[in-house]
């Protein structure tokens, strides 16, 4: 490690449990290396808190390599902080300067209630997925060879792009309407683009959108903020595709 570490002021949302009102609390951390990831900086803070007998800050994290979608945090007014195409674990402290004040809040949406501190309940995404984000294939030994159905390169690429969604919820956290349409659009698209998914396409989009509405997510107004903040670069085209799929499915009855 080279150079002097950074001294930072952190304004962090602290909330004991789901029923607690919660408030912003200031903390200081010193000698933070620019090479650290944001979560490592949080680890330093928590070690400090544990050593001084305080309750550490609860935050979600798992793989720490940008795959799992677990780490959340709204940092300085942006989901996953001030960088593009990354999750919080991929955000490096070199994005900040010595003496900075960093505001850290949980992802906010009525459908993402806070469990504790920076940890939110994103199981509403699971329920949307369970409402139709799958294909019904009998896998008990008589599965068809995947390559038996020819799929165009273009469709395969687009489906794969949609499937890179890790369900982190940055789209919802960032959206001024707390809309989940980028997530649902990606999940609808990844199947709608492939022949295997087309069998159940109409029911899938209707059920997933119904569940999305039921969970209390907002209505998309096409600000495009979700696409900008998405760690996987999921495109707004997926929302347009979901709209087409939904309208076609609904008008057909």
């Amino acid at each position: 490690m080279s150079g002097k570490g950074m001294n930072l002021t952190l304004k962090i949302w602290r909330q004991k449990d789901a029923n607690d009102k919660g408030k912003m609390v200031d903390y200081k951390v010193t000698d933070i290396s620019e090479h650290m990831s944001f979560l490592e900086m949080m680890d330093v803070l928590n070690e400090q808190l544990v050593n001084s007998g305080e309750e550490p800050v609860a935050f979600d994290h798992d793989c720490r390599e940008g795959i799992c979608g677990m780490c959340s945090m709204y940092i300085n007014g942006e989901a996953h902080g001030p960088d593009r195409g990354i999750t919080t674990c991929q955000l490096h402290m070199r994005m900040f300067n010595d003496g900075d004040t960093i505001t850290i809040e949980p992802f906010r949406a009525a459908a993402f209630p806070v469990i504790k501190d920076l940890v939110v309940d994103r199981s509403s995404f699971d329920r949307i997925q369970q409402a139709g984000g799958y294909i019904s294939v009998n896998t008990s030994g008589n599965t068809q060879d995947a390559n038996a159905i020819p799929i165009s390169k273009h469709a395969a690429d687009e489906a794969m792009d949609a499937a890179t969604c890790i369900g982190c919820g940055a789209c919802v956290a960032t959206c001024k309407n707390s809309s989940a349409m980028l997530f649902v659009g990606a999940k609808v698209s990844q199947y709608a683009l492939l022949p295997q998914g087309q069998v159940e396409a109409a029911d899938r989009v209707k059920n997933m959108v119904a569940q999305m509405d039921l969970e209390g997510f907002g209505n998309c107004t096409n600000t495009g903020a979700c696409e900008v903040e998405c760690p996987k670069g999921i495109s707004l085209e997926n929302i347009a595709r979901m709209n087409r799929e939904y309208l076609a499915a609904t008008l057909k009855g």
Partner: protein
Amino acid sequence: MSGILNSSIGRKFAMALSALFLMIFVLQHFVINLFSVISPDTFNEISHFMGTFWVIQYVIQPILIIGVIFHFVMGFVLEIKNKKANGVKYAKNNGAANSTWMSRNMIWSGGFILAFLIIHFIDFWIPEMNTKYILGDMSGMHNGEFRYFHELQEKFVPIWRVALYIVGFVFLALHLLHGFDSAFQSTGANNKYTKGLQGFGKAYAILIPLGFIFIALFHHFTH
């Protein structure tokens, strides 16, 4: 099909359709107004036709009014629903990092346009309805000649009204700068033509309101 307006996507779609309809209306309104600058006689004739032809008066006009009311009511309904979907407000939210001011403030630009429309109705539409349907004068004449052009000119004599209209058109431009391509996205149209359409949308959003401003100023200064 039933209850399509009860779904988030259905509401978006209806919002977009009414928007597309209103954008076509604004374009035709602009073209007719432009004739007031090019040829007052043609303007008078078109105005008389629009004001007396039964299809326009009794079919298109009610559809337009319903379209306007629907767009505003749905806009406010969506805003209330979206506010409800938000959790606790962020202590710090950097919206400018990922979206345009126009896209985040459609309710405000829309609200100001509504206020402008009310003034516009009081200025032009209500007197027109009064002359034609309450006083029963369908002739379109005043002192032996068409009244439309003169009435238009008279309205833009006071500078305060010109200023008010300019403010209204600026909000219309801000609203359209996001609204134009947003309407296409909501209907599901996002394809290889989208980039070109966005360029056209920007031009539409700036040139049409600018044209309306020009017409208002033209009548103010040439009267």
